[in-house]
């Protein structure tokens, strides 16, 4: 049972302190949500964009109230209150599709809060948000928790943010069975080791070694030579005239580089990756991947130069089974390596080989897309939010696999919000903001 299913099950069966019932209620998943709102429960899902129903923020917040047949005057008064509670006063007329991910998630929370639910269920609400967005969401949860108006059930991998505000922690293993339940401090003291063994994130500063950095030997910057893999010079890009996404970006990526591309949602990180891979053409400036313009390379030439792990793994799947997906277009040597990667990334083909990629859990899908990206040992591996929804073991396996790739003379360029990943897997930080490179700790940016 995945975390998400647990969250939906919580919805049906959670009754205060009987935590195990929440897990057992899985069979009632489908029938439950229809009446959930009437029962005084609200749910906030992972993906902010797929839970906004109405075009405008105010209408969306009112949507749940309409469904509960609130009188018009009461709704008019309640909507601004609910928006104020999530720090979005005055956003009523804004279009929800134009907001940042963090703002969208706060709108979703406002829409659920508006009905004054007694129970609020959140399924990894900050998984796709930048640190600012995540911090804002957690500030709201802290505020709600301190007011004590609703019981909050939060499914979350970000232990450092989530544990401090929890009264009760329920840890589940891979199969959805409870490992430990209790006050956070007690769980950490009594079962910290067992949680760690199960690959569950613990809040930072708790027991357990720091991840990743241990064991992996870091090559100092440029130790593998200065063989340039990717060069961007004065690159500009925009989808529409007058609204630039990138404005004059310079970037040199050499063998051995592990670059974390950071910055708020919408700062141009994904666009920069796509330009580097030749999937978009710059309006001005020059891009060279292995010395040539990537958009001119044939698809086959491109696969030798670069690999791409997309943000949403499902968009990268091309085959009907995990085995076919892993072996697609590889030679015998690469197939052997891919199989080895599958084992290391906890996707053994004996168990997963015949499954459809679409049927895997979110974390498994993410690891499968990593296998496909790594299998050809590309010179440049571009990753978009590679740690989304990973537990600690997934994180460690990912860091190790990337270390190995870069150690062989490749480079990685990862767009990420995950500070832990930045610390464990990268050694150069390039910060984008509003289409500008505002910081690069390798080169001084004017």
């Amino acid at each position, binding site marked *: 049972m995945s975390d998400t299913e647990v969250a939906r099950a919580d*919805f049906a069966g959670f009754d205060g302190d009987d935590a195990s019932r929440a897990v057992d209620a899985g069979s009632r998943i489908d029938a439950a*949500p229809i009446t959930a*709102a009437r029962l005084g429960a609200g749910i906030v899902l992972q993906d902010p964009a797929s*839970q906004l129903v*109405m075009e405008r923020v105010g209408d969306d917040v009112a949507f749940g109230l309409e469904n509960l047949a609130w009188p018009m005057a009461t709704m008019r008064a309640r909507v601004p209150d609910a928006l104020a509670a999530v720090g979005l006063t005055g956003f009523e007329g804004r279009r929800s599709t134009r907001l940042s991910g963090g703002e969208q998630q706060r709108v979703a929370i406002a829409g659920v809060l508006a009905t004054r639910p007694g129970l609020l269920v959140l399924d990894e609400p900050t998984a796709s948000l930048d640190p600012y967005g995540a911090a804002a969401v957690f500030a709201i949860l802290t505020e709600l928790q301190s007011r004590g108006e609703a019981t909050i059930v939060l499914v979350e991998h970000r232990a450092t943010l989530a544990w401090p505000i929890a009264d009760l922690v329920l840890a589940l293993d891979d199969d959805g069975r409870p490992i430990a339940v209790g006050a956070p401090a007690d769980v950490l003291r009594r079962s910290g080791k067992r949680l760690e063994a199960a690959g569950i994130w613990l809040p930072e500063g708790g027991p357990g070694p720091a991840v990743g950095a241990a064991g992996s030997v870091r090559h100092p910057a440029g130790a593998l030579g200065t063989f340039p893999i990717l060069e961007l010079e004065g690159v500009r890009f925009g989808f529409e005239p007058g609204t630039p996404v990138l404005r004059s970006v310079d970037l040199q990526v050499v063998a051995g580089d592990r670059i974390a591309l950071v910055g708020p949602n919408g700062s141009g990180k994904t666009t920069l990756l796509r330009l580097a891979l030749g999937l978009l053409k710059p309006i001005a400036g020059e891009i060279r991947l292995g010395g040539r313009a990537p958009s001119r390379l044939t698809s*086959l030439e*491109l696969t030798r130069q670069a690999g791409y792990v997309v*943000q*949403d793994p499902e968009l*990268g799947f091309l085959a009907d089974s995990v085995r076919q997906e892993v072996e697609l277009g590889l030679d015998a040597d690469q197939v052997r390596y891919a199989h080895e990667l599958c084992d290391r990334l906890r996707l053994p083909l004996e168990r997963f080989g015949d499954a459809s990629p679409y049927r895997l859990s979110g974390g498994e899908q993410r690891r499968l897309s990593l296998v496909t990206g790594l299998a050809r040992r590309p010179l440049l591996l571009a990753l978009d939010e590679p740690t989304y929804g990973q537990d600690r073991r997934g994180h460690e396996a990912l860091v190790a696999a990337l270390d190995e790739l870069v150690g062989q003379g490749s480079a990685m360029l990862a767009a990420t919000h995950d500070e832990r990943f930045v610390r464990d897997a990268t050694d150069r930080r390039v910060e984008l903001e509003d289409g500008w490179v505002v910081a690069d700790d390798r080169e001084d940016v004017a």
Partner: protein
Amino acid sequence: MSAWLFVPDVGAEQQESVIGRTNPLVKLGIAIVWLLGLGLTVDVRPPLALLAVALASGVWLGAIPQGVLGRRIAPFAVAAVAIAVTNLLFSGHNTDPLATELFRIGPLRVTAEAVAAAAGLGARIAAIVSIGAVFTLTTDVTRLIDSMVQLGRVSPRFAYGALAAYQAVPKIVEDLATLRGARRLRGLREWDPRLLVGLLVRAIRHADQLAIAMDARGFGSGPRTTYRPVAWTQLDAVVAGSAAVILLMALILGR
């Protein structure tokens, strides 16, 4: 991103204009009746008259900036001309010995009857496009859906479901771009029927998520109230009446 083009914003100025304040259902009704009315005639004048009225009222009563209206219509206008020219050159009238010959281009004989028919066709396409453009540029989608539910007795489940799906269009366009990129990086052709499988899975996933989110917020669980009441107004009657008179006059013009 670029996909936003698919979901045009209707500005406040357009929404508060005379046509903007007219109920979307009335506008939709006018568009349909006008189009049906044009079917009664093959003459070039009625569609040209309605086209002129639509554009003029779009600019003066709908507060649509001329440039915006022009850009919206331009691609379709090109298509209308192309269709008209094709019909002109390959019209059956051109081989009719009884038809009046106007001129010849090499072996091609162009007759007055063919010109009339082609002009009528082109004008009708242009009229349809203009009426559609004025409708979309002055109509807020949310208000259209609200009106359908509250005044048109369309099921809220269907209508608000459709509204939510409509908002997913830009996301799906973006998904397509990502899918193609992923294929290219794996050494496969970017365009392949398999692409649709991935896209379909995504669309279903998205719809599933949305359905859960909507249900979780009590959608369809019983009687609902409305946050944005819509009612018929006098303006609706005036606009509808004027539109009927205009259509009648246009048709008389074509007799």
